[in-house]
C-alpha cells in the first residue's frame, strides 16, 4: 500500500480529473450526437491569467456530473496559449448545465506536468474558477447554465 503525507498529496486528486483529459491531445470529438434542431447554444470561452505564453490550454467540456466525475468530456480541445488571454467559441451545444476542466500545458508536451510526488506543477483551473480544494472542484461548484444563444464564460488559469 502506498502511503503518502496527506499534507502535500491531497491536491493530487485533481489529477484524476485532469489526466484523463490528456486523451484529448488530439482534438477529437467524443461521443457527441449532434442534433441540429436543439443545438442552439454557444459558449464564448475566455481564459485569462496565462503567465507564460507558451504551449496550449488543454480543455475538457462536460455536460453531466457523471462525465465530469469519470473524466469523459463531451468535447476536448486545445487552444494555443500565445498571449496572456485566449478565447475559443464553442458552438452547436444543447442548452443545459456544463462544466470545464483545463490546464495550461506550458511545456507543450501534451501532459499535465507533476512533481515527483505527483502534484500538478502546471497551472490548472475549473469553470466558475471553482477552487480545487484537497481535490478537484466539484461539479456543483464548476457547473454553469448555458442557454440558447451565446453565453460568455471566463476562467482564470493559475
Amino acid at each position, binding site marked *: *500500500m*502506498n502511503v503518502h503525507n*496527506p499534507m502535500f498529496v491531497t491536491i493530487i*486528486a485533481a489529477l484524476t480529473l485532469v489526466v484523463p483529459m490528456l486523451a484529448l491531445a488530439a482534438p477529437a470529438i467524443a461521443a457527441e450526437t449532434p442534433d441540429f434542431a436543439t443545438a442552439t447554444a454557444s459558449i464564448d470561452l475566455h481564459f485569462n491569467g496565462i503567465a507564460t505564453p507558451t504551449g496550449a490550454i488543454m480543455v475538457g467540456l462536460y455536460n453531466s456530473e457523471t462525465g465530469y466525475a469519470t473524466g469523459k468530456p463531451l468535447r476536448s480541445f486545445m487552444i494555443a496559449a500565445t498571449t496572456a488571454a485566449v478565447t475559443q467559441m464553442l458552438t452547436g451545444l444543447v442548452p443545459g448545465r456544463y462544466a470545464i476542466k483545463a490546464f495550461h500545458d506550458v511545456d507543450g508536451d501534451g501532459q499535465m506536468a507533476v*512533481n*515527483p510526488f505527483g502534484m500538478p506543477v502546471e497551472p490548472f483551473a475549473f469553470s466558475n474558477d471553482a477552487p480545487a480544494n484537497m*481535490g478537484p472542484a466539484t461539479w456543483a461548484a464548476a457547473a454553469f447554465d448555458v442557454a440558447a444563444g451565446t453565453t460568455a464564460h471566463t476562467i482564470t488559469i493559475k
Partner: protein
Amino acid sequence: MTITLSRRDLISAAAVAGASLICPDGLMAATDRQPWTLGVADVEGDIAPQALARLHGRLPCGLAGTLYRNGPAKFRRSGTAVGHWFDGDGLMRAFTLKADGSATLTARFADTPKRRQEARLGRIVVPGFGTPAGADVIITGADDANAANTSVIMAGGELLALWEAGSPMRMDPQTLATRGFKTFRPDLAQMPFLAHPRIEPDGRIWNLALSGGSALVWRLAADGTLQAAQGIKLPRASYLHDFTATARHLVIVLQPWIADKQRLPFIDSMTWQPEKGTQVLVIDKADLTKQRIYELPTFAFFHLGDAWEERDGTIRFDGCIEADPTFARVSAAELVKGVHQPAPMPILSMIALFSDGRASLTPSGVAAEFPRSDARRAGLARRATVHVGNYRADRPFAQAVAVWDWQTGKDDAHVFGADHLVEEFLLVPRPGGSGERDGWLLGTTVNLAARATELHVFDAGRVAAGPLCSWRADVALPVGFHGCFAGA
C-alpha cells in the same frame, strides 16, 4: 523517479479532512494559566526593530552578525486553536549583534497562504501536523498548509524559512519581508524540503523530501542552486524530522512510528509499532543506489547530531532518543492548551554503525534536546555536542544549556533556573580559531519573571561560568525551534 499513487485513497483522505472540525477544547483556559504558558502565547503582529537592553557583560570581540531563529508564534484565532505546537504560524526573529557591542531584535511572521487564509476567516482552519482541517478551508497544494515555522538557513543570500512538508519560504535577510516560496526547478515545485538539511563544511547542502516510503534526495550548492534531485525508496514510511550525514554517507534513521493510513491531521496517519525496532539506512552520497540497513533497538526521536566516519568504516552520530513518541503525539499537542503532559525524556545517546553490520546505542544519561555542533566539523570527527536540558517534572521546556563532551563524559552546563524557558543555542566559532570549543554559544531564553525574551552569549569552553553577556527585549516571544547564525 516513478511513484505509484493511490488516488482513490487520497480522495478519501480529503473527504475525511473536510468532515473534521476544529476542536473547541484546543483553547487555552484563561484561568489557571501556568507561568510557562508564556512560551506558547500568541504574538499578534510583527515586532518592529528594537534595541535590546544589555543586562550584564560585554559583547565578545569578534562576535558580530545575526542570529536568525524561527518558531511558531500564533496558535489561536477567536475561539479556535491549532491542535499542535508544530502548527502555529512561523515567526522569524533576527537578533543582530553589532561590532559596537549593541544588539537589536526584529521579528516578522512569514506571510504564508496559511496565515492569510486564517487571518481572512478569523479562524484556525488549515490542517497540519496535529491540526484537523476546519470548515471552509481551501487547500490547493502542500504550500497552502505551509507554516514556514521550523528552522532557517541562509543559502545564496536568501534567508529560507523551512517547514518539512512543503517548500522553503524566501525571506529578506535585512527586513525579514516575505518574498515567496522557493522553487528549485519548475518540475520540483511544492516538493517537501525537510527543516533539517545537512550542510557540509564547504557549504554544500543535502536534504530530503518525504512522502511516506518515497523520498527525494536534494543536493544544493553552497549558493543554494540545485545540483541534483534523485528519488529513493525507504524500507518503511517512518516519521522523519531529521537525518544526518558523514562526509561520504547520508544516514537516515527510521523509527517505528510509521504512516500506515491516509488521515488528516498528519499525526493520525501514523502508528507506533515498537515491535519493529528502529532501522538505519546508510546511503553513499556518490551513488544513492549503494545502500545498507542497520538494526537498532526501538526508540523515537526528533533530532540527530552531525555524523562522522572512522578509518575502519564505523559511522558514529548522536541523537536525542526517546522511549516512545509521547511528546510528539500527546505532550506537544497539549502544550497549546496550556497543559503539561509529561513524556519520556529525550536522552543524548551515541549510535555506532560498524562495518560488520552490527550497531550499538549508548545513552549518555543526560536529558537533552536541540543538539548542535561545530558546523566546520560537519561530517567529521568531533567530541562536543551543544544541547539544552535540565528538564523539570512540573513544566515543559528546558532550563539549562550545556556542552556534552563525548570524550570525557562530562556535561558543562549553565542552569538558568525555573524562571527561564531555554531555547536552542548555536556554537559560533571564534573567527581565526580552530578548536572545537574555541567560540561562543549563542541563544535565547524566555524569562518568565521578566516576561521578556533574552539573548545570551557564553564562552563555549566555559559554559558553567555563566553567560559572558546578556540582553533583554521588551517583549516575550514564544519558545521557538531552530536558528542559524550569519556572521557580519
